[in-house]
């Protein structure tokens, strides 16, 4: 009994550290596995295209378009930056309108009855059909893309924010009222933090939609951006550039996802158990 105590106790603290090392080690292993799988898939692609001699204007080899990513880095980076800015503006606009509107709809019954059905109807309508209307209103340019991104990400953020604002137990307001809380304090200390988890869930869906929206908008009405670059490459049957632009689009999407996840870990640390 005594010896078993002796043998486990000193191991207690290092066990915690090694468990943490184990977690990051496991993450490294899974990243390595992903990398191996990607390299393997690209290798098969490369081999098949070489063996069957597929022409480059039909299907380029991974080495072709990865090289293009390097040689045309400045061009692709310019368009990727334009697209990223558009996403950022439209997405921020969407969140900044969706969250206060969700709070208003949850707070006032009249708004819920009057405004919410309109918003639902607008959401059911495919957003891409609004593109041509925006072209008429705003002309060819970044504004069309920003507004389409806004429309795409607005609704998922609003719906999740509404459920977050609603989720607060009524009796918690008894406790804050007995503390003498002002309406602002109730929002600041109760409603807003309670809604942060759901708002992030909505933003994660919203950002995927936003990226879809920006590419479509750039297809139909723009003079810059990855969607525009893809359309132009397609017109010139420059499939190497097209695939390079596709990879760049995926990288932009990954970047936005990573920023969201990182900021969530920072701002909503309590929500981590909900994801585990």
């Amino acid at each position: 009994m005594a010896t078993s105590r002796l043998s486990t106790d000193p191991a207690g603290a290092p066990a915690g550290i090694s468990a943490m090392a184990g977690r990051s080690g496991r993450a490294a292993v899974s990243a390595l596995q992903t990398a191996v799988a990607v390299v393997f898939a690209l290798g098969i692609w490369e081999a098949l295209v070489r063996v069957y001699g597929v022409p480059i204007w039909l299907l380029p080899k991974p080495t072709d378009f990865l090289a293009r990513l390097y040689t045309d880095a400045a061009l692709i980076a310019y368009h990727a930056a334009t697209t990223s800015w558009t996403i950022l503006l439209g997405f921020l606009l969407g969140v900044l309108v969706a969250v206060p509107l969700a709070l208003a709809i949850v707070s006032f019954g009249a708004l819920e009855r009057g405004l919410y059905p309109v918003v639902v109807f607008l959401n059911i309508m495919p957003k891409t059909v609004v593109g041509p209307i925006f072209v008429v209103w705003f002309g060819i340019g970044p504004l069309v893309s920003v507004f389409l991104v806004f429309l795409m990400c607005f609704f998922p953020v609003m719906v999740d924010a509404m459920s977050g604002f609603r989720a607060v137990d009524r009796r918690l307001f008894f406790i804050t009222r007995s503390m003498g809380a002002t309406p602002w304090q109730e929002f600041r200390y109760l409603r807003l933090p309670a809604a942060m988890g759901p708002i992030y869930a909505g933003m994660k869906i919203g950002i995927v939609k936003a990226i879809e929206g920006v590419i479509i908008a750039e297809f139909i009405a723009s003079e810059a951006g990855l969607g525009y670059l893809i359309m132009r490459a397609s017109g010139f049957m420059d499939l190497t550039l097209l695939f390079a632009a596709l990879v760049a689009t995926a990288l932009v999407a990954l970047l936005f996802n990573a920023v969201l996840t990182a900021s969530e870990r920072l701002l909503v640390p309590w929500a981590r158990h909900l994801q585990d």
Partner: protein
Amino acid sequence: MRDTAAGDGAISPARGGASIRVRGLSKTYGRPPRAVHALGPIDFDVAAGEFVSLIGPSGCGKSTTMLLVAGLEPMTAGRVEIDGRPLTRPLSDVGIVFQDHLLLEFRTALGNVMLQQQIRGLDRDRQRARAAELFARLGLVGAEDRYPWQLSGGMRQRVSIARALVHDPSMLLMDEPFGALDAITRTQIRHDLELLWLDTRKTVLFITHSIDEAIGLSDRVLVMSPAPGRIVEEIRIDLPRPRPAHLGDYPEFARYARRIYEIFESLGIYRFR
């Protein structure tokens, strides 16, 4: 102002508890065609520093009584006076504990307790010191930085007791605070609350449906009838404090308990043959 009254921030305050005076208090929910008469009219007093329990069957209006005394629900008729002053808005010199801990899931244990300081705008360092002392008294040392979902049910309820006391209120309102806990945890936390109360002598209005808890903690027990609840009996509990885990040690305990059972039977709450 309140902070100076709390002196050096020790758990034992210089100030005593507040007195409660309730007259003709009643509550009806809804409007006439579908009105539900939930409570009263009831009259009772709680002296400053007294521990009084309201016991009664589910739905008899005990919780409503607590919310009315706290000024958190509008009363239909009657009067509530705190320290002789009529209650017209939510009582703020109070700590409230509900059956569910009602902690904010996005705040740590300490963060939940410090909500009082933030909303009331009290002195941060002094409140922190008080919180630390309460955590020590309630066996919560080491739990400060944990989130509610990382704590056991008993620990969560202890945190919500700390939250209700950290600002040194003169009154504690508790609505079945141990109702969701297992019997062993309940007995321990009951004892810890009694010791804390003996030190602070805050006025406590304690809502319960446990006869053991009511007798184990109270100076007086008010027994309520089924809805619309009225106070049908007042029992003074003369047992030495602190009271033991096994209340059966006192022959008087059995007498008090039998009395409450008899009242419940006469009201048709219990039907034993």
